[in-house]
């Protein structure tokens, strides 16, 4: 599994890719979000935090598999 970080989430974690082994206990998107916020408490202050799995927004109950590309999506601000 690959975990990518963008925008302010990248700044909070201090890197642009997370070590997937630290998130091995997370079986789905909701659990991954929880672990991320525990590890980086600053992330809880964001107005929203979404997760994309294989380049698509994924709900909390979406299962995560080893080969997935996961992305931490802080509030978007394009345009």
């Amino acid at each position, binding site marked *: 599994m690959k975990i*990518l970080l*963008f*925008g*302010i989430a990248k*700044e909070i974690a201090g890197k642009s890719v997370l070590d997937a082994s630290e998130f091995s206990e997370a079986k789905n998107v909701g659990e991954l979000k929880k672990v991320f916020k525990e590890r980086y408490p600053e992330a809880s202050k*964001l*107005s*929203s935090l979404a997760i*994309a799995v294989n*380049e*698509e*927004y994924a709900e909390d109950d979406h299962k995560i598999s080893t080969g997935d590309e996961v*992305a931490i*999506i*802080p*509030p*978007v*601000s*394009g*345009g």
Partner: protein
Amino acid sequence: MKKKIEIVDSIDISKIYSELSHPASGGICVFIGTVREQTQQQTVNSLFFETYETMAVKEMHKIADEATKRWNLNSIILQHAVGKKNVEEAVVLVGASSPHRDDCFTACRYLIDTLKERVPIWKKEFFENTDEVWVTPHP
């Protein structure tokens, strides 16, 4: 149906007419987002945009397809720039053409509103006083 979706380094407005005009269209509506020098009383020097490009392009295609289903469109464009942009520079361009003007106006508004809601692009503001801040819109 003409369709153009891309993340670019800089937006070229001069091509917009050839990209959107269509023999079956009577109207073209275009929205261009530009860097404004003032935000919440602070003077902005520049913005910096980054994106999760592969996903951004996928989301932009979904938005274009949704608009094409809802309105009678003959052409559609969604372009977003990345990197550093100075005041008055274009950062986003969306547009559509349709037989009658109602459809292209409504679709164009939908394109920009939805792009801002969903497409994974983030901007950092660089202020005159040297602060830099990631923009995280409040709900």
